[in-house]
């Protein structure tokens, strides 16, 4: 890979990181209440998704790590760290493994589901309760819904960005 292309890829990664920052902030502004307060749209996952598809697994993982740090220490609270960490890692691994076989929307929906699954698993361990079942179906539905919405936007952005970023494989 020519060094010029490396620089361009680095610049694209930096742009996606900046976008993740803004999207995390917007995410924290959207109020949620009712059956599941605390549910988030996960807009920053848009950056992770685009990074994973256009730049590859490692830049995507870097964006995912950044997203977790932003969500925890800047726009959330530190008590949520282990939940965010488990959800983020599990979600990213599933998206990484399915990205070549499924559509972007489906990959994103899986990401949303496994993000919430990771969180509820950590909650079950920390609270030493197996019975978080009341939250389970609602969490899964939220994960699918948010994942599909982010995946729809992500799919459009990825197909539009690919032709104008010629250094991307």
């Amino acid at each position, binding site marked *: 890979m020519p060094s010029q292309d490396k620089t361009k890829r680095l610049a694209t990664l930096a742009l996606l990181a900046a976008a993740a920052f803004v999207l995390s902030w917007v995410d924290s502004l959207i109020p949620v*209440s*009712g*059956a599941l*307060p*605390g549910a988030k749209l996960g807009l920053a996952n848009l950056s992770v998704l685009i990074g994973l598809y256009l730049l590859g697994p490692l830049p995507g993982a870097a964006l995912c790590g950044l997203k977790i740090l932003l969500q925890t220490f800047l726009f*959330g*609270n530190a*008590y*949520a760290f282990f*939940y965010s960490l488990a959800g983020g890692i599990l979600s990213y691994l599933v998206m990484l493994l399915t990205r070549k076989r*499924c*559509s*972007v*929307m*489906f990959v994103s*929906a899986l990401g949303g589901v496994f993000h919430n699954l990771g969180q509820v698993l950590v*909650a079950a361990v*920390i*609270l*030493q*309760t197996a*019975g*978080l*079942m*009341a*939250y*389970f*179906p*609602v969490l*899964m*539905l939220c994960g*699918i819904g948010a994942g*599909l919405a982010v995946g729809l936007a992500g*799919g*459009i952005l*990825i*197909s539009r960005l690919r032709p104008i970023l010629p250094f991307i494989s």
Partner: protein
Amino acid sequence: MRLRRREAVFLGAVILALLIWALWPGAPGTAVSVSVNGQVTEVYPLDQPAVIPIDGYGGFSLTLVVSGGSAHVEHASCPDLICQHHRPISNTGEQIVCLPARIVLSVTGKEAGVDAVTR
């Protein structure tokens, strides 16, 4: 980019199953059990109005309010206030969880049966 047909069918089936699960009407419960850090500490009947302060993990506390057959949380001292914003719970199996304080409030069917899962 778009969902493929088999993906859409799969997601549709999963969403339908989850909706049925989530919206399945629960029987009205009779008591609310309080669990702190995995240990059930108290069980309160839902038909007696009460205001109960609960001390949780890490110095966090909340106030459980029982009135009119349902339970909700007021004045939580945790940073996210998710439990405080949760709608009141009244049916068997419904829960309010405060993660920072490690408090789980669950509605049970029988006052005596702390572990009651059945209706």
